[in-house]
Every structure is written in structure tokens, then in C-alpha cells.
């Protein structure tokens, strides 16, 4: 028996190799891209106040794109579903939210931050409720029959997007709608000589809170563990006793509701909404989802900030390049990491 005991597997205490600084920093490289881009912006923009304005604007834009893209990346990672219809939830969210704000002009027009934020909060809740319910129906009717077939998913969800856009024309008419920001979110503050729009600061704060909340759910709750495990190996999650389909529907609904929330944020950012705003923003959302690494919320967050900053910096430095700057960013990231910055390891 003693002899048998010596045959047992040794306790493999990990032996740590002495890695070079570069090798130790390598896994953290994506995290450093945002500060690196901000620094590059600082070096290339001569005026510090313009740089600060552009940085806050870029971060605000990035946060909004993150809110929209986060649900999509999880749906993509969890069930391998490419949902081109995600943009419909952005547009619908914006129209529902703006309609609520137009009703609540008494609250939005009052010079009270509490009332203003309450109005925006109600608009967001209404938008999320409607787009969440739409997401539930969308998953049932449009997505469920085409699981496992990417080509069909692209065609069918694209069709869903077109139908949703036309539905907006039917309900709200074909014209764009202009929406002013609530009274206390109008205007800007001056910091170090830079003009910072109040609303953009609110958007940055809201995006950050959402990211931290999402991270806390994914890292700290059992539901989060099931989602993360399901992105890697849904079959095994099922064999361990969890109904991955139900979790998927929940994630789809939550992702749609977040897109609706992003739509309201975007509407107040642009101060104008159109039926096809969702489709337009989807180009940036796809870039973010791809460079972040499919299924990765952290990667999506970093990718969104990079896209937002890049867009704002290049629009200032070389407006003609603004359109292609994000495509160039995607190409550069994919040449560096073909699976995206923080890919989720798939079991398949």
C-alpha cells in the first residue's frame, strides 16, 4: 500500500518562470490600448482643451456603443446566433423613449435635475420594457427556427430589421423626430479650459455603472457563471442540469432591452432620431463585437471605447479619415489578434 501511495500523482505546485516584462504585460495588452489611444490623441492634438473635449465625447460614444453591443456579443457567444436585427431594438427603444419624453415635457422642461433624471429614467424603463418584450417575440418567431444556420440567421434577422423599421414608419411616421435634452442636461461645464457637455458626462457615468453591474452579475452570481460557461460549452452546461435555452432567452431579452436603453441614450446624444438609426449604428456595433472577441463582455467594453475615441480623434484631426478609421482599427486588431482582443475559448 505504501508503494502504491508513492505511485500517486505528485502535487503539482506551479513553478513560476521568470518572464520578461513584455511577456508579463502581454495578457493585459488590450486593457492598455485605451490609455495608449488617449495618449496618442494627446500627442497628436495640439490643444489640451480640445483633447479633453474629444476624449470625453469619445468615451461617451464608446459607452453607448458598449451598452448596445454587450447584449449582442453575449447572444453571439452563447448560442452562436448572428442577429442583424439587433439594430431594430435600438431604433424602437429610441422612438419609445423619445415619445415618453415628449409626453413628460413638464418634467424635462423643469429646472430640476431630479425631475429631469426621473423623466429620462421613465423613458429608459419604457424603452427597455418594449424592446425586451420585442426581443422575446423576436427570439421565438424569427431566431428559434434558424438555430445553427448562419446564412439563414443573417437573412431572416435582416428581414426582421426591415419589418421593424417599416413598423416605426407606420407608428411614428416617416419623418425624423427632433428631441431636446432635459433642461439640466443641456449646455456644458468648463474644466481646465475645455468645454464638456453635461449629457456626455452623464452618458459616461451611466455606461460605466452598467459595465460594472454587468461584470458583477457575470462574475459574482450563479446565473453569470451559467452564461459564461454556456458561451464556452452549452452541451456541458445542459448535462450539468441547467436549461441553457431558458438562460439564452433571458440573455436575448436582456440584450434587447439594453439595446433599447442604448437607443434612448443615443437619441439624447444626437438629439434627433430616425427609423434607420439602429441600422447605421450597427456597423460600429459589429466592429466592436468582432474586435472585442465574440462573447466577451470585457473585450466588447474595451473595443467600444476604442471605437468611440478613434472616431472622435480622427474626426477632429482628419475628418476625411473618420469613416475609415474604425475599419482600419478593426483590421489592425485582427492582424494582431485574429480572434479579437479577448476571445472566449470555445469547446467546439
Amino acid at each position, binding site marked *: 500500500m505504501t508503494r502504491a501511495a508513492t505511485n500517486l*500523482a505528485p502535487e503539482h505546485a506551479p513553478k513560476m518562470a521568470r518572464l520578461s516584462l513584455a511577456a508579463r504585460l502581454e495578457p493585459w495588452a488590450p486593457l492598455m490600448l485605451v490609455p495608449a489611444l488617449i495618449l496618442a490623441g494627446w500627442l497628436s492634438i495640439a490643444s489640451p482643451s480640445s483633447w479633453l473635449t474629444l476624449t470625453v465625447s469619445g468615451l461617451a460614444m464608446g459607452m453607448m456603443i458598449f451598452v448596445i453591443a454587450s447584449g449582442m456579443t453575449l447572444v453571439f457567444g452563447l448560442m452562436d446566433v448572428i442577429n442583424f436585427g439587433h439594430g431594430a431594438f435600438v431604433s424602437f427603444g429610441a422612438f419609445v423613449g423619445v415619445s415618453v419624453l415628449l409626453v413628460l415635457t413638464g418634467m424635462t422642461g423643469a429646472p430640476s435635475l431630479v425631475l429631469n433624471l426621473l423623466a429620462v429614467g421613465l423613458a429608459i424603463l419604457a424603452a427597455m420594457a418594449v424592446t425586451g418584450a420585442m426581443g422575446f417575440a423576436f427570439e421565438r418567431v424569427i431566431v428559434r427556427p434558424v438555430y445553427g444556420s448562419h446564412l439563414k440567421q443573417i437573412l431572416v434577422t435582416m428581414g426582421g430589421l426591415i419589418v421593424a423599421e417599416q413598423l416605426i414608419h407606420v407608428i411614428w411616421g416617416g419623418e425624423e423626430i427632433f428631441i431636446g435634452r432635459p433642461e439640466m442636461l443641456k449646455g456644458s461645464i468648463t474644466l481646465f479650459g475645455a468645454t464638456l457637455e453635461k449629457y456626455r458626462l452623464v452618458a459616461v457615468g451611466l455606461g460605466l455603472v452598467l459595465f460594472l453591474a454587468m461584470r458583477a452579475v457575470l462574475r459574482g452570481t450563479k446565473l453569470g*457563471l*451559467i452564461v459564461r460557461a454556456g458561451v*464556452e460549452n452549452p*452541451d456541458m452546461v445542459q448535462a450539468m442540469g441547467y436549461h441553457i435555452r431558458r438562460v439564452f432567452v433571458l440573455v436575448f431579452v436582456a440584450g434587447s432591452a439594453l439595446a433599447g436603453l442604448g437607443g434612448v441614450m443615443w437619441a439624447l446624444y444626437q438629439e434627433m432620431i430616425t427609423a434607420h438609426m439602429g441600422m447605421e449604428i450597427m456597423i460600429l456595433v459589429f466592429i466592436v463585437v468582432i474586435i472585442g472577441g465574440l462573447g466577451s463582455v470585457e473585450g466588447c467594453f474595451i473595443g467600444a471605447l476604442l471605437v468611440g475615441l478613434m472616431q472622435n480623434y480622427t474626426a477632429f484631426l482628419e475628418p476625411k479619415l473618420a469613416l475609415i478609421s474604425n475599419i482600419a482599427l478593426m483590421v489592425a486588431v485582427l492582424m494582431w489578434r485574429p480572434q479579437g482582443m479577448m476571445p472566449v475559448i470555445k469547446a467546439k
Partner: protein
Amino acid sequence: MSDPILTLRGVKTDIAQYHILHGVDLDVPRGQVTMLLGRNGAGKTTTLRTIMGLWRAREGSITLDGTEISGRTPPQIARAGIGFVPEDMGIFADLTVEENLILAALSGPLPEDRKDWVLAAFPALRTFWKMPAGNLSGGQKQMLAIARAVIEPRQLYLIDEPSKGLAPAIVATMARALRDLKREGASILMVEQNFSLARALGDHAAVMDDGRIVWAGAMAELATDTALQERLMGLKMEVA
């Protein structure tokens, strides 16, 4: 055989256009270890995956402790009381060792006594407790896969080739843990190609070929009958 924990009758499973199981009849006795043996491609893994509901049986019945489970979904079958260790281990590489185990505990937090037992059986898991499971070696991943299945008591454990690709020292650790589990009175159905390990752990054996059970009986009988081994499995080995 009285009161088996699991019974398969005439189970037929197709994968795409291929007929893989051609009518499997199998009884897994309660509180004992049954080894499912057979050459590659005989249908052993498909049998386990069919029991788990990961492949749907086209025909036949599967009962767990008297309850029909064929046609149920994998989560329902798992919650009916089956712990499953798949051939590819199914480790969640992005989750830590601890998170992998938390996920496996269906009824709430990790039960302390089982956790202590698992960590005593597989000390490597304690070392890597807070690290992503993707960093583990092949043997450690297999230990985690078994730990996950046994972290809560189950009615039946399905274990698919736990010794596959592992060094003898790790197989010995695994065998000791499985022996502990067996002493606890667990019912186990295990696929194993390593006949020495199968012989050491198994009470019963069932040999598969071409999607059917071609022999079933006591492991002691199979272990001592070299002619039978050769006929059933093409084995030619010295019996110690």
C-alpha cells in the same frame, strides 16, 4: 440481478444518417461499479450520451430508479440524479476551478464535507483553486471533471474513459478517488479502455460491439477468462 438503478431496454440511437446503437439492453446494479468495455466505435460513448439525453434515443426505454427518463432533456436527466464526466471532460476553461465546482453544485453552495473530500483526493485542485481551469494539465482537468460530478451525491455517475491519455501516476490517483466513491456505495457506469483499471475497479462488466451489448456478467469472470477476453475484445494480456 435485483433492483438495478439504471435499465436500458432496446435502446436505438442514430447520429445523422448513421445507426449507432442497435438495441442496447443493460442493467446497472445499485451501489456497484459497472464497466462498459469494447473496441473503439462500439457505441460506448454514444450509450452514455444517450442516457444523458445528449443524443436522443430513437427507440427503447431508459429507466433511472424506476422512472422513465428517455425523451427528457439533459438538464432534467441531470437533475434526476446523474453526474456525468464526458470523454472530453467538458471543463470550462475560462472559469476558475472553484467556479467550475460551484456550477456543479445544483442545490446551493458547495457542500463543505464533499469539498474537503474532493480536495483531499485531488490536492492539485486546491493549488489551482482560484486559477482559470484552462491552465490545468490534462490530468488535473480530468480530476476536476470527476470532482465536478461528485461534488454533490448523485444516484448514478456516468464516467467516460477517465484514464484516457493520462500518465500511470495520475491514473492511480484517479483510481483511488473512484475507489473511495465506490466505498461510499455509489452506483457507477464507467467506460474504460484500460483493462487493468477496469478490472481493478469494476464489479460488473458489459462488453459492447457494433452498437449492442454482447456480453454482461461479473468482472471476476471476465478477468480470469482470457479466451473470453480475446473473443469479446481482442485482448491478449497476461493475467496477473
